[in-house]
Every structure is written in C-alpha cells, then in structure tokens.
C-alpha cells in the first residue's frame, strides 16, 4: 500500500506541485480521477458511460481467447520439445527463427490472410502468448534434474508415467512463470494490435484519445489496462499456487 501511495504522491508532486520541465504536459492525478468518476465526462469516457465498458469487453474477450488458445497449444508443444530430444532438435531452430518476429509485424499479413477484424487482432495476441508459453515450458522441462529421469527409468516407468510424474510436475513452476509472462504479453500485443488495427477496445481508446489530445482519457485507459492485466496475472498466479501445493509458497 505504501508503494501505491508513494507513486501517487510522486505523480501529484511532479505534475501539480513542482511542475518539473518534462512533466508539464502530463495531467495530475486529481484531474484524471475527476474525469474517471464523472457522470458527464468532458471527453466522453468515464465509469458512467457504456462506451467505456464496451471497450473493456472487447479487449477482455480478445485477450482471453488468444491466451487460452496459446496455453492449449503451447504447453503440450513445450513439454514435448523439452522431453523428446529429437523433437527439440528439429523444431527449436524453427521456433527461435519465428519467435523473435514481433507479433505486431504479423499485423499487415494477418489482415491480408484472415477475414474480418477480430481474427487478425486475436491472431496477433495469440502469437505473442504462444511463444512465451512454449519457451518457458521447454525451459521448465530442461531444468528438471536428469537423475529424476534415470530414477524413473530404473523403476520401470512407462513414458506416460514419466510425463505425468516427472515432466509435468517438474516443469510446473516454469510453466506458470511462462503463463504469467504470456498473460502480460497477450495484453501487450493486444493493445498495440488495437492501436494499429482495432476499431474498439482499450488500445484503440488510448490511441484515439491521443489523436484528440485527451490526456486524462489516455491515462484512464492505461490504468484500466493495468488493472485488467493485474487481475489476469493474479488469477494465473492463484491457479499456479493451487496446483503446486507441495511448494507451500
């Protein structure tokens, strides 16, 4: 809580009280919150306008669709790559070639290949979350002590049992780090995708506000995104904690 207060204080101090040279064009917190909680907002977006919730609904829908698709595909692929050396050798270089291609570099192509407005934005978001999930899952499997595999073999584990009792639990901490990053990346790519290609959503709202020089609305959008992102990663973290009870964090 102290961290929050300090940040708010610094924001207020730099913009409203001291008016430091770089900060002169940033709106002080009071103005932003007054706009946010206003029934008749000066720039048309606040807690009391339906359009605000419409933007949120669109962004949430896109982010979660892409995230779940990425997890559904990324975790199994990552496990397989880490577990089977042959799969790793054939696919890792390809993964590493495609992975650094920024999701946003896919925007023009996605628009050309995929029909409509939603699929390109969701695809771009998916790409971002997918690679983070695969990479972290893979690293998780690689981080498992080799002796566990040898022990499992000595005990005559079937491949299925190795997967269930060694690979998955061993990689679990990394997987959930990966999912948290993937969740963050989903929002990251989503916002940029919406800025470039979207017609609705919070990213579009921010960029639209920027073009109209409505700074309170920009900050409102950023804080809303932060809140949504925080809630999302908190959910992922809680799930991780529930599934990894043995670590007793």
């Amino acid at each position, binding site marked *: *809580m102290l961290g929050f207060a300090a940040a708010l204080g610094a924001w207020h101090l730099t913009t409203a009280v001291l008016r430091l040279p770089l900060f002169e064009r940033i709106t002080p917190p009071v103005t932003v919150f007054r706009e946010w909680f206003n029934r008749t907002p000066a720039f048309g977006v606040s807690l009391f306008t339906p359009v605000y919730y419409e933007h949120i609904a669109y962004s949430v829908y896109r982010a979660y669709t892409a995230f779940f698709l990425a997890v559904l595909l990324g975790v199994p692929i990552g496990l397989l790559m880490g577990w089977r050396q042959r799969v790793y050798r*054939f696919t890792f270089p390809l993964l590493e070639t495609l992975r*650094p291609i920024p999701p*946003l570099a896919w925007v023009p192509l996605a628009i050309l290949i995929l029909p409509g407005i939603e699929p390109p934005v969701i695809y771009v978001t998916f790409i971002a979350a997918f690679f*983070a999930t695969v*990479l972290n899952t893979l690293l998780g499997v690689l981080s498992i002590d080799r002796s566990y595999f040898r022990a499992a073999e000595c005990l005559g584990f079937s491949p299925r049992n190795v997967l269930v009792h060694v690979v998955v639990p061993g990689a679990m901490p990394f997987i959930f*780090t990966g999912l948290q990053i993937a969740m963050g990346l989903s929002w990251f790519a989503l*916002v940029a995708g919406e800025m470039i290609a979207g017609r609705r959503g919070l990213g579009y709202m921010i960029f639209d506000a920027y073009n109209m020089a409505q700074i309170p609305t*920009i900050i409102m959008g950023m*804080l809303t995104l932060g809140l949504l992102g925080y809630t999302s990663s908190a959910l992922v973290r809680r799930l991780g904690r529930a599934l990894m009870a043995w670590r007793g964090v």
Partner: protein
Amino acid sequence: MGDLARLARSAAVWQGLAGIALFLALWQVGGALHLPMLRHVPTPLEVLIQLATQVHSRQYWQSWYVSGQRVFLGYVIGVGLGVPLGLAMGMSRTFHSASFPLVEVLRPIPPLAWVPLSILFWPTMEQTIVSIIFLGAFFTVVLNVLGGVEAIDVNYRRAALSMGARPWHLFWKIVLPATSPSIFTGMAVGMGLTWEIVVAAEMIASIQAGLGFMMWQAYVGGNIALIIVSMASIGLAGLLSSGLIWMLGRRLTPWLRRT
C-alpha cells in the same frame, strides 16, 4: 574455423535446418497450389528475390543500425536496473512489500500503451522509443529474477544460516548462483520483447527510420514481399541477440547440464 567445422558436422544443426526447410517447402508448395490462406502471400522464392535487392540498398542496413541502437540502449538500461531490483525484492521482505505492489501496478500496463504518454513526456521521439524498450525489458527481467529467488529451496538458506552465514554470503553463495538461470531466462525473453517493441513503437510513433518504419512503409505501399523481408530481418536480429544472451548464460552457468 575449428568451431565452424564441428558445427557443420553436428547432427543437431542439420536437423534444425531440416525443420526450417520443411516449413519453407510447405509454404512454397502452398503458394503454388493457391491455397486460400496464402492467396496474397508471396512465395519464399519471391521473398528471397526481394531480399537480394534489399541487401544492396543502403537504407536497409541503415534501418538495421538505427533499430539495433535503440534496442541496445533500452535493453542495457532495463537489465542494468532490473536485475539488482529483482534480487533486492527477492532477498528483502520489507523491500518486497514496499515495491512489489507498485511493480505489479505498472507492469501490466503494456509498454506500447505508454507510447502516447511518452511522446508527450519526452522531448524527442528517440527518447520515447528507448524508454518504451526499457520498460519492456525491465519488467520482464524483474519478474524472472524475483521468481528465481523465490524458487530457491528454503533449506539452502536455513543450512547456510545455521552455519553462521552473513547476508552477504547468502547473496554470493546461494542467491546469485541459484538465480542466474532465471536471470538469463529473463534476459532472453526480454531481448525478444525489445525487438517486438522497437518495431511496434516505430510503426505507431511513425518515426523516420528503423526496421519497423521500413515495414510500415512496405505495408502502406502494398509491397508484401518487403513486409516479409522486414519480418525476417527482425526475426534474424532477435535470433542473433537472443543467441548471444543464451551463449553468455551457458558460459556463466557451466554447472547446469544442458542437452
């Protein structure tokens, strides 16, 4: 030279190339068959021809240089601040509870959502882009380092403490070695992220140079082959940079057995 020869003889390299070749072949064949998804997409050969012409243009290499410079600057600052902060947050409970909420509030704000505000904040576009890259690298590194410290088995700490270790010993003998894999994971993921950000920021902020700008121009001009060349260039740039990080990580954590 010896290294190169050994590399050429290793099966792993050829298998990796085979994976990539298969992907390209599927793409080429798909284009030749006029699959609906690939209708507007040039084949790998056409992209290659485009690449051949680009390699001779000064502007292409200028784009590499400009984007690379931005990435390097933002990344170095991000890692330089992120690693110590993550370690401090992992080691000190007080510092953790004071700063973690703040990090958690700012981190989920996607770096690119900062672009409009940064443009207003920083006097030059160059500073805007570097600051956005910094944000991306910084939070990724902090989160990974923190996760690494928290993943350390408590018994190591207890054992060290019961043998009379000072906090400084804990740091050098336990926390830093145990966390270094996470540090390098964070650095590698952060490196991938910086290339994403530089390109997107260059597209959104409409700055007059860089690979992202080149791609945006190609998009506006309808030159799809050049779009793909840009994508591949950025991919290559990211591959080289993250390869560098992995190499560094492997050298500095020799006790981790890798396949």
